[in-house]
């Protein structure tokens, strides 16, 4: 029981560390988008990808990256705690 509890605590600490790193990545992406919208809005008309402008590409990218980061987190946390 004691070992299980220790494992659980270590697993939680590692999960939290992974979560914080992935969270910071997303925060930077989000802040980047907000920065462009607020200070360089003309850049959003640029069409880098398949004829779609940066406003749409970045916005869709933020939604997609949320899911990708979530999946990475789920896989990374698997096996790190007795609950997983």
């Amino acid at each position, binding site marked *: 029981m004691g070992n299980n509890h220790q494992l659980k605590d270590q697993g939680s600490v590692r999960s939290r560390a992974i979560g914080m790193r992935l969270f910071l990545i*997303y925060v930077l992406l989000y802040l980047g988008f907000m920065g462009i919208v607020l200070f360089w*809005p003309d850049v959003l008309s640029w069409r880098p990808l398949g004829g*779609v402008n940066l*406003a*749409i590409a970045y*916005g869709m990218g933020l939604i997609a990256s949320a*899911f990708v980061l979530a999946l990475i987190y789920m896989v990374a946390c698997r096996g790190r705690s007795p609950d997983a």
Partner: protein
Amino acid sequence: MLYDSSPVAIAIFASFVLGVIGLSFWLGRKGQSAKGYYAAHGEIHWFVNGIAFAGDYLSAASFLGICGMIAFYGYDGFLYSIGFLAGWIVALFVIAEPIKALGKFTFADALDARFNSRGIKFAVAISTLIVSIFYLIPQMVGAGHLIVPLLGLPHAVGVILVGVAVTLIVVTAGMVSTTWVQFIKGSLLVFFCGILTIMILNRGLVLNAGRQGEEDLRPQVQTQTPDGRVLVNGEPQTTENDLRPVGTIHKLPERYGDARETGPLRPLQYLSTLEDSQVVTWSAKKHTDDKGVHTTFTPTIREGKDLLKPGGYFKGLSSGTLTDRLNFASLMLALFCGTASLPHILIRYYTVKDAAAARKSTVVGIAAIGGFYVLTLYLGLGAMTSGYLDPTSSNMAAPLLAKSFSETLFAVISAIAFTTVLGTVSGLIMAGSGAVAHDLIENCFGVTMNDHEKVRAGKISAVFLGVVAMALGILFKNFNVSFLVGWAFHIAASANLPALVMLLFWPRTTKQGITAAVTVGMVSSLGWILLSADTFEKVYGLPRGDSPIPFSQPGLVTIPLGFLVLILVSLVTPRQEPRQVVDA
């Protein structure tokens, strides 16, 4: 615009509502404990909970509001999609697993898990009620607005219908039935919006869609006379003399030559083709004289590339003034911070068995919600160019888009829109019921109850809140409610998030710090909103310039204020030895 009631829509809607109420009675026939009523015994599978997150979170604001905003203004509605979804990252990486380990039934349980403080219980219960009420009002008003074209009945009937249905759902089986209603609603919403998007792409872009012959760019005028009559272009409004539906493609890209339609388009191709097209949008301007209130709808031909970038609704982004930028940044901050602070979302974490299930269900929720928000861009743009928009109502954009394909699809989408309200309102009533019965009556006021009495108190609270919700939905019928959901996010983010984050990550947090942070966050954000220029103009009918507040969205000030107050108060109050929390 006038609508004919749709018997098919009524039949589908009635089937669904009766179905979920029947499911609730079946689920509720087993004896209930408090853990069953408030937390579904903690036995909900993580996948079901993930979809239920979508059913709980995707309210009328997401489905009808965002689609309508994109249809009327272009890209800016998508900014709400981005902000709403970003908040789930905070929920997953910061909140989900720790909160599962704290608390039992309610958000107040989580914040008070280590302190056993009456002050925390009281402050958080009040915060939960205020956020829930601000979130409830636009849902109930939205339900009323949907019922008018669907059933041809007065607004109040829709409000009462949804209020009674939701109260029955919550009272019969509490969180168990609420979970399954949200699961069913979430699944149907994402599935049928996916179908609608495929149909939009398959149709492509059509010149003057929904019309025969040349497009009609004549302005239209609707007049509300002092004696309550409605005139259209000077004549009484009838089905033969009504506002023309609007929203069309004026010109396709040159590569299509004289073609009147593009044919089927791939997802990115749809967006790039629209960007190269010209679209007829319609703006409304009101003026009042002794004959009544006149709203003139005027067409404007706009380049697609201007519609698919920010600035259509948030005009300040183009002007570049400091206060407009601060306003926008504040709103996006509140959306980012608010999701993980919404009580009716947080209580869903108590329905799964452990932290790993909490994590997995959040990932499923992000997939469903993120997928839906991608679809909203296509739904909104499809509505913008469908030729079926009602210039008086952006909330009807999504159902009318469905109508441009078929009456059956209109019926299905309208019924789903209505049940979208059911799913969210049931979650809000559950959160409020817990705040009243569990946090205030039992924990704060110290009324001792056995398990059966706790469940009964929860049910009575749910009935009371249902009645309050109906009354507010009728009272605020003509209120501009599109920003009330934003207000709820600001209050939740300002009052709840600082306390939650610091409790989880700063051991020096004291009970006085939490109580002060919740109270100051709640009061400051509410006060800011009530004194803002938006409220002066849209609620009090006073000039915007009379407002003492520099910009309308408070989050940029009140969220950091909550953190600051918590830190300062915690530092000047005695450090407390936290109670050992046993994992739930």
